[in-house]
């Protein structure tokens, strides 16, 4: 069970208060109507499943109800950082 720092509340809370919402930084195409079916399918369905660092979207569901991002190691389950929506991660996988 994770121990998660909510960047909005400024406190660590138990995982039970949060929901994981999958991969972070999925921008909705600005002009969906002019996307090809392929492009739209990529946005809708294609997700990363990395071994190691992963950027995820979470919500403090039973707390402040705000979304935020988390950089997490999918092997060790370490939370490397949390940051607000609109911000960029500072911990990124070496390419």
């Amino acid at each position, binding site marked *: 069970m994770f121990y998660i720092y909510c960047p909005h509340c400024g406190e660590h809370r*138990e995982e039970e208060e949060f929901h994981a919402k999958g991969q972070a930084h999925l921008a909705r195409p600005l002009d969906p109507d002019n996307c090809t*079916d392929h492009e739209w399918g990529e946005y*809708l369905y294609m997700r990363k499943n990395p071994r190691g660092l992963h950027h995820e979207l979470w919500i403090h569901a039973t707390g402040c109800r705000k979304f935020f991002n988390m950089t997490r190691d999918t092997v*060790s389950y370490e939370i490397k950082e949390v940051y607000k*929506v609109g911000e960029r991660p500072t911990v990124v996988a070496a390419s």
Partner: protein
Amino acid sequence: MSQKNRLASGGRVDRAKALNFSYNGRQYPGFEGDTVASALLANGVDIVGRSFKYSRPRGIIAAGAEEPNAVLQVGATEATQVPNVRATQQSLFNGLVCSATNGWPNADLDLMGYVGKVGGRMMPPGFYYKTFMYPPSLWETYEKFIRKAAGLGRSSTERDPDMYDKVNHHCDLMIVGAGPAGLAAALVAARSGARVILADEQSEFGGSLLDTRETLNGRPAAEWVATVVEELKQHPEVLLLPRSTVNGYHDHNFLTIHERCTDHLGDKAPAGQVRQRMHRVRANQVVLATGAHERPLVFGNNDVPGCMQAAGVSTYINRYAVVPGKELVLMTTNDHAYQTALDWHDAGRKVVAIVDTRQNPKGDRIDAAKSRGLNIIAGSGVIEVQGSKRVTGVSIAPLNAAGDALAGAVERLGCDTVASSGGWSPVIHLSCHTGSRPEWRDDVIGFVPGKTVQKQHCAGGINGTYSLKAVLEEGARAGAAACEAAGFSDAAKGISLPLAEEVREGKAMALYHIPHTKPTSRAPKQFVDYQNDVTAAGIELATREGFESIEHVKRYTAMGFGTDQGKLGNINGMAVAAKSLNQTIPQTGTTIFRPNYTPVTFGAVAGRDCGALFDVNRFSAMHKWHLANGALFEDVGQWKRPWYFPQGGETMQQALDRECKATRESVGILDASTLGKIDIQGKDAREFLARVYTNAWAKLPVGKCRYGLMCGEDGMVFDDGVTSCLADNHFLMTTTTGGAPRVLEWLELYHQTEWPELEVYFSSVTDHWATMTISGPNARKLLGELTDIDLDRDTFKFMDLRQGDVAGVPARVFRISFTGELSYEINVQANYGLHVWEKLFEHGAKFNLTPYGTESMHVLRAEKGFIIAGQDTDGSVTPIDLGMSWCVSNAKPFSYIGKRGMAREDCVRTDRKHLVGLKTREPKTVIPEGAQAVNDPKQPIPMTMLGHVTSSYYSANLGHSVAMGFVRNGHNRMGETVFYPLADGRVIEAEICNPVFLDPKGERQNV
């Protein structure tokens, strides 16, 4: 009966407190301070069960959590039965009732034993897969037989009379294990002022210090333990948890502790006391001081009762004053185990021989044995044990220097006990729980904790550190390091550790499996994992059959499975596999242990979260009235919603018929409070609605309501509801009862992550309002008696909302309808709900105001062809599929959620599955929901399926059944016939029709 193996003095049992207990129906005496295991051994009970696969008699091997055989069923009554209790961990109390779990009809006389003896060769590793898989139809027969043969205990069939608890903690240091290392760490931490939890699975703190004859400061080690515990008790920030097993080490330093608060007091907890408690600990730093388990050696017939782990024998002698036999042969690969022979000898029993696998052992303990005149046979091993229900003797033979072959003639010795020691395995279970791979150390001859991301410190036996002096030092160091990391510096200052004896020890030999005169496959069974009956030959067979990874070997042979988790056997098993594959143990792989370390009862897992407290129940403000008026309830999410209100001896169908007719003929009332309500405000609220609903919202005037469909980005419907415009920047959205939290999160997701520039705020107001819908031709007359709102049909029109007083309290009234009748949905503050509801009934009697529940609501809406999101939709249907293109606006400037998805190639096909009405040829027949449509019921199975029935009821108002369902290309097949073949052989014929069965022009709601 006398306790024939009990010593007259010594040990930590209280001879003044005699206890009686029952094992397998016989009464035995014991003392306070005993475990069930020590009391059984004191009474000379050799057999505590039959083995899982071969049904061989088994005795007690160890004295702690690692005991594989003495797994008992405990409980004096049916309600207090507990399976899987280790006799070595259960404190004795007066009146305790226990029995062996394995063995049929009983452990001593076991009929299955003959099957085991005869069938042993037919039960090689993987025998389930090989033998019992075919034919599949017989598996149920096999399984019953196997289960009975295995007899792994049973749970109670009655309600547990005891109370269980859970508690959450946060602490600076969680110290696991209160042996010398744990106590030293705790002392350091306690003095630093840190908040400390110290847990140990045993009934008293001290760990190995309770079993040892080593001294601290020249005094018995237990005296130092008592001093330390006394000091720890004085520190207000220290929580001491004896009888508490840390069973799981989870991510981010979260640990679960299973405390057995009263298991040692009686069959049931004393009145008002909790039996067991689950502690959930979030620790800043963790100190693992879990010690080590001694490994027995693997040799022929090493499972005959009387074969024991050397350290276990010492524990029974020193802690419990029980010598579990008369004549001992000790086999060892190391110096430490000599202590067992010294203890045995000093207790006045005969040591037949110390068989040392090393050619030339040297050390203080060896000198001590020599000075007592004990017979040391160096460079030899016990290759085989004689006896069946108890050891009667051993065969020993010289070994070569490597220990992998015999180097001389076999000799026989008589004895009744064989203690063996192959060295120690650090108890690394907890450190593995979070995924950390252990590391092999040749100098330790064992696995130690590997790299971890947890804030974890290890001390003592878990590190392969075994000398008492070094263990104490390591404990103090780990405690100080953990304190430092938790922000308590200078912790170690002023701590003086007790002086331990220095014992010179020779080098231990890395030997696990003693060779035999015959090859392993033909030698007598050499057990590696007692609990799962895994032998050295079985492991060799597994490697020959191509299972080379130790993880595969484990699964194939079942080694390390079940409640045992490989505590005694895993390293030996890996050694056998490694030798067979001609590689080293680390090359063969590591092994990971999973939670739980030892079994946890369901009671402790559940705590108070059972019965009425299992889940949250939500009730509307009118719940009391529903109860008083005989409602039956349906669970909708966490809500208890009235299902229907039967009167007298009505059947369900009779009640529904009455409720539905009364509504259409006069007026009915529904408690709709559970519908999700989301208050939406802000200057961009209207724009936001237009983006999340499929239809248009730009021109909805203040005081008007509109129905909307919500889709995912894939164009599939996921919720629906009516949203009302209270002011230009203020809307009230309703959602389905079950979908409310999901919809709110969905709105927040898009607002917070995609369109933060829109100024809009969402707030759940579901619980703030009580909602009651009156529906039927007399609804206006009824409401008119209670409100100051002008209900004139031409000023308060269909889909209008008005605010005013109803029954003297402020209300919002929406003229919306889910029945197709003239309807008013009255919303008042929840606290006024019951008042208004009762006022409506006061005035409604003359109109035969009839309450109805969710079931009649379903029938009434199905008569009108209204969908229920989640029943008539399943995440694979678009608004077009539902025949609701009127609810989709493609003229909106913003590409709303779902628009692009609906334009996908597959979504614009005209022959998708469409929602249609279904009229049965036989009017009274109701098609079961879920039935599949086919074109040709005579087509051979598998028939081509066209879609399923989603809603189906009998309509008393229409005098025939009504149904909706999906049919491929259904919108283009109006008037055609489809068939529903059922499991019972019937075939129901139905005509595809418009789903609006009643009042297709919608005149009734506009009166």
